[in-house]
């Protein structure tokens, strides 16, 4: 490879890595990611009133269901208490009047009145000084419902097995004839919560990449050093050196983010072994992902997604470089890059919302479109909307697109980097595109 090209790339990389801001930013990122992944332990470490119990005082107005209700409460509370964030409840029956209890009601007390009802079997009145936290209210409400069901069963002579048969969900034996699409429909729901988190770093790195390529080219133009540089290396080599350096930077930055995440998880795992646990939401999502075969699919989709991401980085950086060559200062580039940013943002939102438009032909077509494909294709594949072949098609389209923008874009770039006028920019752009003198 040309010595000057390598030198330009090296200088460009040195400018990016050998700055105090790169070090500071990465320290902040590492700390933030590690803290986020260990937020549970950190919150626990700083302490708080985690052991306080909520006392449920029950006044049974002739329903004779207190003992049933108490059992249900204990049962539900113990299920939830297997997690770190469980609730601690104590139930007791009171013979005092409701008015007396209300007068003396403490902030950690909930007053529950159980009343009989001829049609609904059981009605309850729940009184507290403050808002009840969500988990406690959930336990309370489910316990009341179970109590009501048991009373209803007894009154109507329904045995437990019959009730279970009635209330259990229909068993669906799901068969999908197309093997590529053999996927759990619940994945769509999971995707909407997991995928935005997974692709957010890619979106952010794309933004950094666009800024980086454009910024550097703009700087060389505004300082007029461009003429000296391209009198010694060809515009093509110049552009490619910027693209290569910026892509290496974002890929390394992306890998560093993964390293920070792994360190965070390792610390978290260490804490797990010493008695702490992952947040219930994380374990629940992870369990669902494993059950739906999502993790298994990742093995196939990860390499293809990585190829798509790297190619998309290339496409974004080439276009950013060409746009930057047409601008005269950083302000102009900021404006000119806006469509590119929106395109990337559009891809991000489409990937998030893909689950809402199951079977949409438009979304499927958009998954082939360069700039969008790296966001949308993997998302659709994970939901079983498209197969591996479709991702491969997206990759081929992206490669063709890169070839075309390089082929035509370099003509624009060659003219653009020597243009210092804001007049008729688009006219010059199209003339250069058609290989005419501008």
């Amino acid at each position: 490879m040309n010595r000057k090209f390598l030198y330009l790339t090296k200088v460009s990389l040195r400018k990016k890595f050998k700055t105090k801001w790169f070090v500071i930013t990465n320290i902040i990122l590492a700390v933030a990611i590690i803290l986020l992944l260990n937020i549970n332990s950190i919150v626990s470490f700083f302490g708080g009133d985690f052991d306080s119990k909520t006392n449920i005082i029950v006044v049974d107005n002739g329903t004779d269901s207190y003992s049933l209700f108490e059992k249900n409460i204990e049962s539900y509370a113990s299920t939830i208490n297997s997690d770190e964030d469980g609730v601690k409840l104590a139930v007791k029956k009171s013979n005092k009047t409701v008015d007396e209890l209300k007068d003396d009601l403490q902030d950690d007390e909930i007053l529950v009145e159980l009343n009989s009802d001829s049609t609904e079997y059981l009605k309850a009145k729940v009184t507290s000084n403050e808002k009840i936290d969500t988990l406690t209210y959930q336990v309370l409400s489910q316990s009341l419902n179970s109590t009501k069901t048991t009373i209803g069963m007894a009154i109507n002579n329904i045995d437990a097995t019959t009730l279970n048969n009635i209330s259990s969900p229909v068993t669906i034996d799901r068969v999908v004839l197309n093997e590529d699409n053999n996927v759990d429909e619940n994945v769509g729901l999971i995707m909407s919560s997991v995928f935005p988190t997974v692709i957010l770093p890619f979106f952010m790195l794309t933004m950094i990449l666009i800024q980086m390529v454009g910024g550097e080219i703009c700087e060389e133009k505004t300082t007029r050093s461009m003429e000296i540089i391209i009198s010694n290396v060809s515009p093509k080599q110049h552009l490619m050196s910027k693209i290569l350096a910026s892509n290496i930077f974002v890929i390394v930055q992306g890998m560093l983010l993964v390293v920070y995440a792994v360190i965070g998880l390792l610390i978290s795992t260490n804490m797990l072994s010493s008695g702490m646990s992952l947040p219930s939401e994380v374990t629940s999502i992870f369990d669902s992902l494993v059950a739906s075969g999502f993790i298994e699919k990742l093995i196939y989709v990860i390499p293809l997604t990585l190829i798509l991401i790297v190619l998309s980085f290339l496409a974004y950086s080439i276009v950013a470089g060409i746009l930057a060559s047409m601008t005269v200062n950083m302000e102009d580039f900021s404006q000119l890059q806006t469509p590119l940013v929106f395109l990337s943002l559009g891809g991000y939102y489409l990937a998030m919302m893909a689950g809402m438009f199951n079977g949409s032909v438009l979304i499927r077509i958009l998954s082939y479109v360069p700039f969008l494909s790296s966001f949308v294709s993997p998302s659709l594949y994970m939901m079983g909307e498209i197969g591996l072949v479709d991702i491969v098609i997206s990759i081929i389209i992206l490669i063709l697109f890169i070839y075309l923008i390089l082929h035509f874009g370099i003509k624009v770039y060659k003219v653009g980097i020597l243009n210092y006028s804001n007049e008729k920019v688009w006219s010059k752009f199209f003339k250069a595109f058609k290989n005419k003198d501008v």
Partner: protein
Amino acid sequence: MLEVKHITKYYGNNRAVNDLSFTVKDGEIFGLLGENGAGKTTTFRIIMGLIDANSGEVLLDGEKIDYNLTDKIGFVTEERSLLTKLTVLEQLKFYGVLKGMDESLIENDIDKWLEKFSISSYKNRKIKELSKGNQQKIQFISAIINHPKLLILDEPFTGLDPINVKMMKDAIYDLQKEGCSIIFSSHQMEYIEDFCEKLVILVKGEAVVSGNLKDIKEDFGIKNIMLRGDDLPLDKIKKVKGVLSVSKVRGEIEVKIEDKVIAPKIFSLVKNSNITKYDVEEPTLNEIFIAKVGGIHE
């Protein structure tokens, strides 16, 4: 030797350079003059291979200029072309390596040049922290660090005080002695008169004046007679056929005549007037430039 042969360049329908030809021999300093927008920058860009001419060719030592030859060319642009966030050392290394020099060996050369221009103490300072004059010196060093075969200087003395101008002039003369062909462009005509043996004046991309400076002045015809003395017969002088103007310049009388044959007539009129100065001078380049460029505009 640089040979520019019949180059023509259009931007759309606008003709920037029209059939321009000139030659700069080894060790020769050549002036390229023209008002703003006359086509100088386009000519430089064509010579540097940054843009292609629609017709014509540019040869350096008989070879068409491409990226294999640009290492032998130094270019000082009119506006400063330095990456201001870099240090002096980083900047000079950067341009030096791009001109084909070895990164590991370049620092010795840099030290020599910095010392020659008395700016060694700024070696590790950022460009943006330097004065305009010192930035100009860095720009000049970056253009000549590779001992170019062809040096293009577009307003190289901008922002320099007389001492630094002399320092840079000496460096240019040293390069000339080494056999470097130099193209010099400036709006300050006294520099061109100082340096250039040959020149071209461009107007709207066309060479309206071209050749040796001495011949150009000779052919221009108009001469200036500078007079100092008592009771000079100015009214009689004004009436002489061929006298274009009579004016007072810095305490002396300047008589502009349309041809040198008028000069003896003026002398015969003033010889009895107790004169202390009678000098027939060539026209200044400034006068020629204004006459030629102004004439086109009229």
